Structure formats: C-alpha cells, structure tokens
C-alpha cells in the first residue's frame, strides 16, 4: 500500500494466525440472541452481515451529537456533519486504496452503484451491436441493469460459461472478448457458489481489448484485502451491510478519467453548483453523482465498520474464514447424501449444498428450529443455479464472528434433518 492510511484504533491487537473469534463474536450485540431457545449461529453473512457495537455507537454518536445536513450550512453542526460524511469517504478511499476521494461515490448499495454505471456510462457508450460481457455466476444485480441498458441501446448481453466445479471458464471468457465488447462486468466473489474470480487475468485480458471492467465486490469486501489499484479494475461496487455496516449505504469506486466523461445520473440537490430555469452547472466529483441529501449516518456507520475491520486485520479475518471453510467443507462432505455445489479451487467462505430427498427450504426451516440461520433458495443468482440444473441450494456463509463451534452446530443440525426425512 502506497497510499497514506487513516489512523485506526484497533479494538483488538491483531496477531497473524491468532484470531480470537469468541472475542470478536462478543463485539456483536445480536450474537447474544437466542433463536428457538438456542444461542444464535449466524451463517448468513453473505446475505447481510451483523453490525458490531462500534458501528452502532458511531451511528448513535452521530445522531445525538452531530447531525445536520451536509455541504450546506455555515453553522457548527452542518460543518461537523460534513466533516463526518467526508471523513467516511476518505475511510472508504483508504480501505480500497483508491487514488482520490473524487473516485468514491456513495450509493444505496452495490445494486444502485451498478445501475449508476449501467445508466450513466452505458447511456454514453453503448450503441447498437455492442456487447456487455458478464459471467454465468453473477448476482441478478449484475445482470438485470445490463439487460436494461442493452435493451435501451440495442446492445447485446453475453455471459461467459463456468466449469463443472463452478469456476469461471477463463479461456472461454477470453474468447468472448472481441471488438464489439464495450464493458466487462463480473463478480469478485460469487454469492451463490463462493467462487473467487481470477480478476487480475480477467482485467488484463479485457484491457488488452481496451475494455473497462466493473467488479461487483459485494461478497469480497469483508473477506479479503481489496486494492482497486492492484486489481487495476475501472469500477468497483460494494455494500455497507455486507461489511458489518448498516443497510442503505454502499460505494462505487470509479476511475476518475471515466467519471469525468460520464453524464450525471440523477438530478437534484448536492449534484449542482448553480441552477437557472434554462440549465444548470453540475458539481465537481464525486458530488456530481450524489443527488439529494445523502445517507449521512449510513456513511458514518460504514466508515466505523471499515475501521473496525481494519482493527481486526483483513489478513487475519481472511485466514480465519479460510479455516472455517476448510472445516465446513470437510465435515459436510462426510454427511451421506450431501452434495457441495461449487467446489472451485479458489473459494471464499461460502458453502452451497443440496441434500438428497430434502428440499433446501425444508433444510432452512429445520436448521432455524436449532437456532442455525442459513440462506436457502436461488440466492438471486438463478442463472448460476440453472447452470447446475438446480432451482435452489442451502447456503452457509461465514463472517469474522463465526467459530469452529458454529460449524459443529451446523453439522449436528443437518444430521437431525436427515433423521426427520429418513
């Protein structure tokens, strides 16, 4: 990392290899809950991660001491609120190692960030006959905005296939790049399968064709160090609630040179410098893309979440979740009739599976009765499901607060499911 990092005050001393998940768990008030008479085992962080006390405190502190509208008033609170909001932007910049805060746009989340690019950049660049290249494992949020943009501009959406284990078929992806390709839009990590995509190779291949790359980082941001400069991607989108922050806030990183060419997306306050009835002068980056009063307290919460995660140490969290993945993978494979869906060599802390004779929804209900929360269904990635000839899977996903004992509770609960269904 070359960029100067903001000061952080770690709640724990992060020693590589020594990660105290029990202590981390204690930082999350919701983990004290019992579900159906048992201590909560939360294995659904890929859908939404829980918030640590530090985030809740930061939001409350902001609301009780600092709140006012931003970028508007000369009074003290407005200035402090602006400082808190722009401070959170700097925190995001540092966290993903962007060059400048001009490249960080606050959005409602990953979905809105992708829609922003699809509509603003897509409207500017997509022409009849052009192609947008995605993959077969994308979340619907990285499919539907491109379908809409392609339909609006006569372009075509193309999806690269997967291999049998749920990895991206990289040679097939590269072969689909051509002189009609205008953009590549890919997940960093698949939410349904856990596959980590080979972004460096993928970005290099796209750039050889002069094609920019958008990365849907929703499933990566909390689980490994993300460095947009090292990845060399052109857009990177993520959500606050996947990274232990609140819902309704997220960020879009975009290369400044691209943002400078893109037309504003939504019109309103904050994105203008001056307005006359005939026309308006738009604001500078990044505010040009932030119409209306933003989610200030959400941004403050997101900033606190990133600070918390920096305190734990991204590498320590990454190693901890790798151990949980290895433990879960080994234990689940022992269960008769259980089939893992997505076994790519490079995976994040997501285990998708089916159980012979038991529908995923029934697994979900029976696990919930044991206090174990997992996701069941198509995970908003129906093309990835249909690639495996499935309509649904059960999915356990891990976060920094999960422990080895959580995996054991999952396995015990699955044995009970087997007993009920015979």
């Amino acid at each position, binding site marked *: 990392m070359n960029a100067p990092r903001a000061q952080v005050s770690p709640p724990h001393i992060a020693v590589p290899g020594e990660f105290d998940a029990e202590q981390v768990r204690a930082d999350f008030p919701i983990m004290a809950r019992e579900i159906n008479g048992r201590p909560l085992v939360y294995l659904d962080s890929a859908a939404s991660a829980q918030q640590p006390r530090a985030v809740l405190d930061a939001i409350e502190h902001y609301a009780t001491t600092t709140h006012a509208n931003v970028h508007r008033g000369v009074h003290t609170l407005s200035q402090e609120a602006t400082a808190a909001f722009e401070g959170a932007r700097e925190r995001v910049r540092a966290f993903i190692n962007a060059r400048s805060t001009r490249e960080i746009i606050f959005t409602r989340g990953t979905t809105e960030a992708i829609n922003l690019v699809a509509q603003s950049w897509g409207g500017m660049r997509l022409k009849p006959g052009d192609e947008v290249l995605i993959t077969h494992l994308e979340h619907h949020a990285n499919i539907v905005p491109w379908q809409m943009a392609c339909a609006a501009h006569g372009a075509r959406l193309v999806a690269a296939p997967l291999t049998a284990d749920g990895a991206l078929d990289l040679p097939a992806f590269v072969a689909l790049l051509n002189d009609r390709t205008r953009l590549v839009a890919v997940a960093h990590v698949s939410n349904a399968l856990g596959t980590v995509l080979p972004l460096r190779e993928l970005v290099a291949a796209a750039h050889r064709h002069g094609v920019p790359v958008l990365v849907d980082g929703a499933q990566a941001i909390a689980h490994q160090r993300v460095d947009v400069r090292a990845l060399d991607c052109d857009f990177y989108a993520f959500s606050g609630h996947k990274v232990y922050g609140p819902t309704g806030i997220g960020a879009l990183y975009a290369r400044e040179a691209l943002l400078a060419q893109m037309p504003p997306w939504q019109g309103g306050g904050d994105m203008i410098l001056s307005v006359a009835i005939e026309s308006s002068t738009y604001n500078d980056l990044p505010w040009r893309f932030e119409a209306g009063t933003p989610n200030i307290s959400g941004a403050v919460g997101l900033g606190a979440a990133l600070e918390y995660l920096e305190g734990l140490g991204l590498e320590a969290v990454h190693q901890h979740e790798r151990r949980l993945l290895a433990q879960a993978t080994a234990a689940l494979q022992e269960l008769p009739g259980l089939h893992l869906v997505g076994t790519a060599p490079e995976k994040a802390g997501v285990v998708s599976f089916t159980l012979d004779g038991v529908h995923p*929804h*029934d697994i979900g*209900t029976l696990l919930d*009765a044991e206090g174990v929360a997992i996701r*069941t*269904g198509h995970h908003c990635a129906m093309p990835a499901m249909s690639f495996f000839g499935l309509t*649904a899977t059960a999915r356990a996903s891990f976060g920094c607060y999960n422990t080895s004992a959580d995996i054991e509770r999952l396995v015990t609960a699955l044995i009970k499911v087997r007993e009920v*269904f015979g």
Partner: protein
Amino acid sequence: MDTRDLYRDVILDHNRSPRNFGRLEPADGSALGHNPLCGDSLSITLRVQGERLSELRFNGQGCAISVASASLMSEAVTGKPLDEIAALYHDVHELLTVDKYTPQRPLGKLLALSGVREFPARVKCASLCWHTLNAALEQRKVAASATPPATVSTE
C-alpha cells in the same frame, strides 16, 4: 415452535410418494404456479365432467410442504363438485393463516397442514397448489367459452 408439528408423518409420506403426480394430456384446464421467493414451480392439469373435477395431476419442484400440500389437495378435490372445491379452498386458506380456525367442513387429511400456521415463511409453500388449481379452473372457463355454448360453465 416445534418442527414435528410441521413435518408430520402424513406430510413426509406425501412428500416421499406424491399422489396424482404427472400430467394429463389432453386436459380441460391447466396452469403453472410460481413461488418467486424460491424459484419453485408447480404445474396442474385437470379434467372436468359435468360440474365435477374428475381428474387432476400435478408436477414440478418444491419443498416437502408444497409437494405434500399438492398431493393432499389432489386427493381431496378429485371427484368433488366445483362449487365444493371453491369452499374447500377457502377453508384451507383460513386453516393456514388463522389461529385456532374451525373449518366449515371435514377436511380429513388436509388438517395435517395446520402446523404450517406457526411458520409464516412457509404458508406460501402450502398455498401455491391451491392458487394454481384456481388458475387452472379459470383457464378452463376461458378455454371452454371459446367453444360452442353446450360446454360452457356458468357460475
């Protein structure tokens, strides 16, 4: 919350060996039901003689609750007059959603679904087949109205 109340033996049995599973060709009425929450789908084909539902088949993919509910429904409605099926639909709907509901008529094995009420997330699984049946009967009316009046059902 006791899952044994949801996964009763009757439910597990009908999930394992669904009755009237398959497809009728030709059929007097048909419909495809979707549960957008989970991507599950259920198709129903049926035949009507006079004003009675004479045969029904269902197929598709679904959880134990949706498969068992469709299987139990297929047994309950086969041979029944259509107006009685409409009343049965109402009773089952109330059974699935209203606490301590007293059915207006004997529901027989359909009572096994009463445990679903305690699991709000699963009510849609149990009711999907009934909605699809309704749609199939509606489709039959539309199809029938396109042919000479002798076969038109007027309700």
